[in-house]
């Protein structure tokens, strides 16, 4: 049940009616929200509902056990149990076949045909998001950053909360759990902003689906394309992945807002980043901060920075999918982040890096964006060999197929779309509030844009991040 489908609209209307108008007391309202969230999740595959509920039950009781434990040793034991259960589930469903296949491939290099069996299990949608979210609760309790909260239904509902269940943002228990205990009602100003975010998300998702086509020309061509089309394809994928994921996130935050819940932003104009480190402060913020707080810092943070960055980025890449391309993508980002740190430490570069000149900012932005684009090739390509070919294609002059008749126009349209996606974000952040107050313009524009997106948006296209 995708947010941009007619059936979700019917679901949400029915949900609003019962949640807001029928179940007026707190507990029945929470129970209904949980039921609705499980229905939403079950629409993909009801067989995975027990897994989601089971995860939440385990972490709820382990968090209480950690809170009640008298010794550090016992706290650590319960935390280890939580980590094992969560990562065990994730590993079994998401990585088992990848590991088995990789071992088989590795052994075959030495002529050993291992013939290892594969599980071929269906990946439960959203599993990477909710296991990380659930895990953050037990870790926070272990670290003393929050006290365990009583009320299993509140914790389960927070974990299963349908706007952000299947593709995040990955919320921390301390951000969201108190809201479920308080059970807010919508504030009209917030709700109005929620409608703006839903519309903005719909625009981004529609743009992403349109950009998927020029991206496909490059990534599905099965051979070299013209230089211009190679760059258009990579640029289009950059726009597609951003529009798709940020669009989903906007809709998730907007939907939560119209029913009174506040979810922090997950993107902050990522393609305006001026360094790889800056990029990760702006891209999928909830994941990058999760990895920073629970992995990078746990490994020792800056103490062994290069090692810890490498481990964090490799696992961050692997979090996106069980494939070597994602590992390579993570490794690539580790290298460019370490490169940034290394250069920043050189006195020769210090003057340049610390300079506030516009030229420096434009240059660092261009280099960063170029590197991010190269990273997206690894992310999107079918395998590392294809990714290498595409990167070569992007840097080859001569001997390539002739560009299509309107290639330059397509390149310009693609580039403009990527820029417009960011301008839309900037507008929502900087001008959204005043726009929302101009009701005579605000509502007609929203309706018009929604109508347009419904007309051309492809409701059958899954969101890319659902597979993670």
């Amino acid at each position, binding site marked *: 049940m995708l947010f941009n489908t007619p059936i979700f609209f019917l679901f949400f*209307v029915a949900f609003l009616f019962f949640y*807001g108008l029928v179940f007026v007391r707190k507990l029945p309202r929470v129970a209904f929200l949980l039921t609705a969230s499980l229905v939403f999740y079950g629409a993909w595959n009801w067989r995975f509902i027990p897994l989601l509920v089971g995860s939440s039950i385990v972490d709820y009781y382990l968090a209480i056990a950690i809170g009640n434990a008298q010794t550090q040793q016992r706290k650590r034991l319960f935390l280890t149990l939580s980590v094992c259960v969560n990562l065990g589930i994730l590993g079994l469903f998401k990585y088992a076949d990848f590991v088995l296949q990789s071992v088989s491939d590795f052994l075959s290099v030495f002529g050993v045909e291992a013939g290892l069996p594969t599980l071929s299990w269906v990946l439960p949608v959203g599993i990477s998001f909710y296991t990380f979210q659930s895990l953050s609760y037990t870790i926070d309790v272990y670290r003393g950053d929050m006290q365990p909260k009583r009320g299993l239904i509140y914790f389960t509902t927070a974990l299963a909360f349908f706007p952000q269940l299947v593709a995040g943002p990955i919320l921390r228990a301390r951000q969201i759990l108190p809201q479920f205990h308080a059970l807010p009602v919508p504030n009209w100003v917030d709700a109005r902003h929620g409608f703006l975010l839903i519309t903005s998300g719909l625009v981004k998702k529609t743009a992403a689906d349109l950009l998927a086509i020029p991206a496909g020309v490059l990534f599905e061509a099965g051979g070299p394309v013209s230089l211009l089309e190679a760059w258009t394809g990579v640029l289009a994928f950059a726009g597609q992945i951003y529009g798709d994921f940020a669009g989903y996130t906007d809709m998730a935050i907007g939907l939560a807002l119209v029913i009174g819940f506040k979810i922090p932003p997950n993107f902050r104009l990522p393609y305006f980043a001026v360094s790889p480190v800056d990029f990760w402060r702006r891209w999928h913020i909830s994941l990058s901060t999760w990895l920073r707080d629970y992995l990078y810092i746990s490994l020792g943070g800056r103490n062994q920075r290069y090692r810890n960055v490498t481990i964090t980025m490799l696992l961050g890449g692997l979090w996106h999918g069980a494939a070597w391309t994602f590992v390579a993508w993570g490794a690539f980002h580790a290298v460019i982040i370490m490169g940034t740190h290394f250069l920043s430490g050189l006195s020769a570069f210090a003057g340049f890096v610390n300079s506030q000149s516009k030229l420096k900012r434009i240059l660092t932005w261009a280099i960063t964006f170029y590197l991010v684009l190269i990273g997206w090739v690894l992310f999107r390509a079918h395998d590392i060999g294809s990714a290498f070919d595409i990167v070569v294609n992007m840097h080859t002059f001569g001997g390539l197929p002739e560009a299509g008749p309107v290639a330059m126009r397509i390149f310009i349209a693609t580039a403009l779309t990527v820029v417009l996606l960011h301008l839309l974000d900037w507008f929502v952040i900087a001008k959204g509030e005043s726009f929302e107050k101009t009701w005579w313009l605000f509502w007609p524009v929203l309706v018009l844009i929604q109508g347009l997106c419904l007309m051309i948006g492809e409701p059958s296209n899954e969101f890319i991040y659902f597979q993670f």
Partner: protein
Amino acid sequence: MSSSTSSSEPTGSGRGAFARVLFTVLIGMGLALGGVRLFALVVGVGSESLLGRVMQAQRALPQIAEEPNDLVMVFGSSMVRAGFSPREFDAALAEQGIDVTSFNFGFGGLNPLFQDYLSRRVVDELKARDRRLKLVVIEFNPFQTTVTRRNGATALEESYIAMLASDRELWQKTVDDPTSGIRMGLIRYLRDGISAEMITTFMWAEPFQPPDNRQRPQMSDEDRERLGEIGEYLNEVFDEDYPDYDGSDWYYPWRGGGTIKTERSEKTLEIFDEYYDLIAQDNRMEADRQSRIRTADIEELNFDDELVEAFIRIVENFKEVSDHVEVVMLPKNTDWIQNPPEAIERQAAAVARISEATGLPVRDYQVVEDVSNDMFSDTTHLNRYEGAVAFTEFLVSEYAEILR
């Protein structure tokens, strides 16, 4: 922000706020959907422009059912559309004292999944009027039943089914798969048959072709100019020869077929010969072959199980209203389309599956003596004044006894 309270509910339940949000959602979405409807009306591209021939044929069914003679229907793809001439078929049989009225139900762009729904509409209409077909000839088109062909039609799938399904079938679809069913309901009742996928695939995606797909056959300036002149001439002559023609894709007076040789002048037929020579140049034929390989896997023939199943359903549907059902494969242009042995094996397996499921033989007319490779206008379609005539005569010879 208002929050209504009463003695029966706790303070802060926010009913008023939720009511306001719900009202906003309903009004906003209602207006947005209204905008979609308005857009569909203004643009004017709808089911009629997409499936005009199918819709026109469907509308003709009540009239077909009223025909006094025995009814014959040849049902299939664009190969049937190009290769079967109902009026010539009827005339040839009439000469043998057999009175039938035949119809060309060949439609381009429909795979068996869509044809299944169309066949159900034919069956529904005939049953409702208590009428039967004396003979139905159903084309099994191997390259229309491939995985590649199906993948190429995914953008059309919901749209075509939404247009071809009955209300009951659409409801059943909604019960089986609410997400898809509701979408199809909107396509049918709100979007006039145009899905969002069709807009993006056919209006937006056209310029985005990978290099392999962009190859267009070259033609000399002289030939191109001549082709233009021929086109103009043929249009003019057509207007003169057929002043009553109403522009329909499926024209009842021609019973879904095309023009016939006896209605054209010698000069027009000569010009047509020249036209076919020009469009059948080797480089154009090779481009057409490549296009068929890319879009339909015409040589390797990797069959899609669901499409084969859908074809079996088509045969079963027609059995309900037909005295005699024939399943056939139409002539193949073997100069250009050659299947490797593995493809032939796959085809044989598909044919065997169809025969086993339907209890009917699949008659292989892919290579018949009366139809030669120079009677094709491209790699798959018979030309009108030789190919269609020859194949129609062949069908007469094959089925006259059954119809007698």
